[in-house]
């Protein structure tokens, strides 16, 4: 059964492959680990197909900034339920370096994290199969917010309720 995920609020078949799943030479959408990217950067820069990269929590997102235009997908890995660095990675990629491609949460990702992940700029989520169909609802958990974030538009100011 093909791998599925939640992307832009819809359950879709994952059209990306890891290096171990695909011949690197063809034009399939290929996701690299950060180390794979770094060790053969010149090779990947000239490759034809769409390229993605997964950051581990300890990776500083700054390292990707110079090459960000090359990536159609950036992932942040969540090794466990208490991992929180990916939230900062997401915001920096979207807000500081204006990444507009697919921002994917991988690893330990559950529906109860989705609302915050989305507010940090993530738009695709690798969820357990059992949660895929119900998880989209979690994106609408709250209908208001206190902080400006990329999902409310970068120019949105802190809500000044005195100003209608």
């Amino acid at each position, binding site marked *: 059964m093909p791998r599925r995920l939640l992307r832009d609020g819809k359950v879709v078949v994952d059209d990306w492959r890891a290096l171990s799943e695909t011949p690197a030479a063809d034009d399939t959408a290929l996701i690299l680990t950060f180390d794979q990217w770094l060790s053969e950067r010149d090779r990947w820069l000239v490759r034809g197909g769409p390229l993605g990269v997964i950051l581990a*929590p300890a990776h*500083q997102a700054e390292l990707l900034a110079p090459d960000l235009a090359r990536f159609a997908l950036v992932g942040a890995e969540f090794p466990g*339920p*208490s*991992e*929180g*660095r990916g*939230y*900062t990675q997401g*915001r920096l990629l979207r807000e*500081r370096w204006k990444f507009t491609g697919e921002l994917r949460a991988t690893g330990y990702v*559950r529906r*109860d*994290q989705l*609302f*915050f*992940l989305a*507010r*940090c700029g993530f738009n695709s989520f690798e969820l357990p199969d059992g949660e895929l169909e119900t998880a989209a609802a979690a994106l609408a*958990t*709250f*209908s*208001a*917010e*206190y*902080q*400006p*974030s990329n999902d409310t538009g*970068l*120019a*949105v*100011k*802190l*809500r*000044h*309720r*005195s*100003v209608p």
Partner: protein
Amino acid sequence: MYRYDVIDKTLVDERVAQFRDQTRRFLAGELPEDEFRGLRLRNGLYIQRHAPMLRVAIPYGLLSSTQLHALAAIARRYDRGYGHFTTRQNIQYNWPKLEEVPDILAELAAVEMHAIQTSGNCIRNTTSDHLAGVTPDELEDPRPWCEIIRQWSTFHPEFTYLPRKFKIAVTGSPRDRAASLVHDVGVHIVRGADGELGFEILAGGGLGRTPVIGQVIREFLPREHLLSYLEAVLRIYNREGRRDNLTKARIKILVRSLGLEEFTRRVEAEWELIKDGGLSVTEAEVARVRGFFGPPAYRSLADIEPAAGRETAFRAWYRYNTTEHKVPGYRAVYVSLKKADAAPGDATDTQMDLIADLADRYSFAEVRVTHTQNLLLADVEQEKTFELWRALDAAGLATPNIGTLTDMICCPGLDFCSLANAGSIDVAKLINERFDDYDYVYDLGEIDVKMSGCMNACGHHHVGNIGILGVEKHGEEWYQITIGGAAGADASLGTVIGPSVAKAAVPETLARLLAVYVEQRHDGERFIDTVRRLGVKPFKERVYAAPAAA
């Protein structure tokens, strides 16, 4: 006080719905325990020794009488008729049923309250000076800033999965009554060189296993930048804080390992990048929030001497349990939750209802929680203090001991808490029994005793003038004693005096420490100052001179 608008209301209602669904999934077996854990913790729900423990947020310790009535009703309906006020100005219930917690949250939401982020590795309730707005010595009322921080920190998408918990305290007075130096971040309202008000920012304070006094990372921050600066601090912490070892995950460890200078440099560099983004707090917003904390309709009165000619008991209460107010004719009145035969910080449902009624009658329908686990009626006419005293006294709420030895801070300890190694409530009882002579206690003057049942230091023992820490030795409860700690603007960490003592020997140990103080003190010298002058040695020698009789 702050009142919810449609946005606040929407958020707490949606939180109740979210948690109701999470609880339902957990009880139906759809959500594994280890996944539910982090979710329930972010709603203040622990699984404790006897039952779940629910911690309800009281933002910066401020309650309306309506809210206090609601807390009383919850204690009556869902608990065993009482609640426990904490050192972070919150309230805890020890006996709720898990399946009823969503209903409790719904009752809280109906009175503009919640349990959001009262536990878990996220930004906790922002605490403040319980005398905010009424103390003559403050530069500015800190509560509007607390509310601005409350909103920014609530459901902050980036900072909900921090390495560890994160506590912020804000004060507006040079006398720090919020223990801000032992918070992850302390925010002090200060006056800048040109006379403008802004903030001094401290970071890296904390108690727990490794107690640290916070250090200044910025001497003056213009007020519009408060949130962007906090965001920069939190971002550095979220990225760099240790996640491999829970006991080394607080920001104090990061500050220490990077060094204050490097930590500060990183914060400042991050802040430079975000300070002109969307987080500026405009004067209009400050004014809007400040409007909620405007002075109540004080009457035009003159100061009087209400205690003159009254009975001794009232005079003692007036002296110890009331404090000065910036408005003539008014007094701030402590409601002591430190009665000899009750757990420190506990209040029953009927006491809460009574205090709420008294707040309606005497103090503009507001009540505050102090970080020393008492309540406060902040705006009482001096002329009414006598009748207020009679009402409080009849309910066991007028123990005249504020700031004295028996006004102990005390965690729930082994009786309730699954983390505790030793009891603390029963030790408080033993101390109360030993020191039941008010003349002696008054003669000792100002002294803070703080007690924790384990290393987590919920009872702030490190910063007690006398600190008592429960430890477990060979299956028995023992107590390690420190002296010389302080929590105010002159905060310091206590020094361990020697080997821990058995439970029954704790009162005698205190008696020996106090005897040294009484013999050695200079005229008018506080216990803490005598300890600072003499060092630990004479105290230690007395305590361990001969075995303390049980």
